[in-house]
């Protein structure tokens, strides 16, 4: 079974703090993704990575950065957290083969106060 784990289920941070969200997958997948889910907006892609040290911007990268130093680990960084970054953050990984199925972690509910 594919397992994608995220470092925290719930996180509360203050405005201006630097926030690290970590994601680890155990299936040697090439591709990893970070999404945020907000009511009425669905899943929106923040960043993704198709190889170690490679990254590409998604649809809403502003205010975020990522790091992928090892194949199994993909980190999302909020450089200076703001209240509009309060959301559910979901990490996913994919082997990149048809039908391009992505496997998701349980999510991190981040609240910025």
């Amino acid at each position, binding site marked *: 079974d594919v397992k*994608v784990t995220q470092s925290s*289920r719930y996180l509360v941070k203050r405005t201006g703090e630097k926030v690290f969200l970590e994601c680890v997958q155990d299936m040697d997948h090439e*591709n990893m*993704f970070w*999404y945020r889910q907000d009511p*009425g*907006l*669905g*899943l*929106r*892609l923040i960043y*993704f990575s*198709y190889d170690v040290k490679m990254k*590409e911007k*998604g649809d809403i990268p502003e205010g975020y950065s990522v790091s992928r130093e090892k194949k199994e680990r993909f980190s999302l960084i909020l450089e200076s957290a703001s209240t509009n970054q309060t959301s559910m953050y*979901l990490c*996913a990984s*994919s082997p*990149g083969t*048809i*039908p*391009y*199925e*992505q*496997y*998701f*972690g*349980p*999510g991190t*509910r981040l609240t910025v106060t």
Partner: protein
Amino acid sequence: DQQVKQNSPSLSVQEGRISILNCDYTNSMFDYFLWYKKYPAEGPTFLISISSIKDKNEDGRFTVFLNKSAKHLSLHIVPSQPGDSAVYFCAASAVGSNYKLTFGKGTLLTVNP
């Protein structure tokens, strides 16, 4: 511009009846379509997929239909069960997209006992 649209934010059906969830898309380059199911406080889980060269794919109680000319797909759940109550996301992947998925905003299905 929203390339994958789920126009019904919610759907309510009786246990044992058929649930039909709809999805429309605009990008002719999409070649694979997937359905995900998401319970609250959990990550989405893959349900079923269909290639653009097919018009139907069936897996147990779940069937996905694809109408390429109308750029429309639907997920049928028969018979519906209370445990099917969740948010359902339609997603699509385009040729040459680096395996990215484009998600719809989701439809909340409630199956009443």
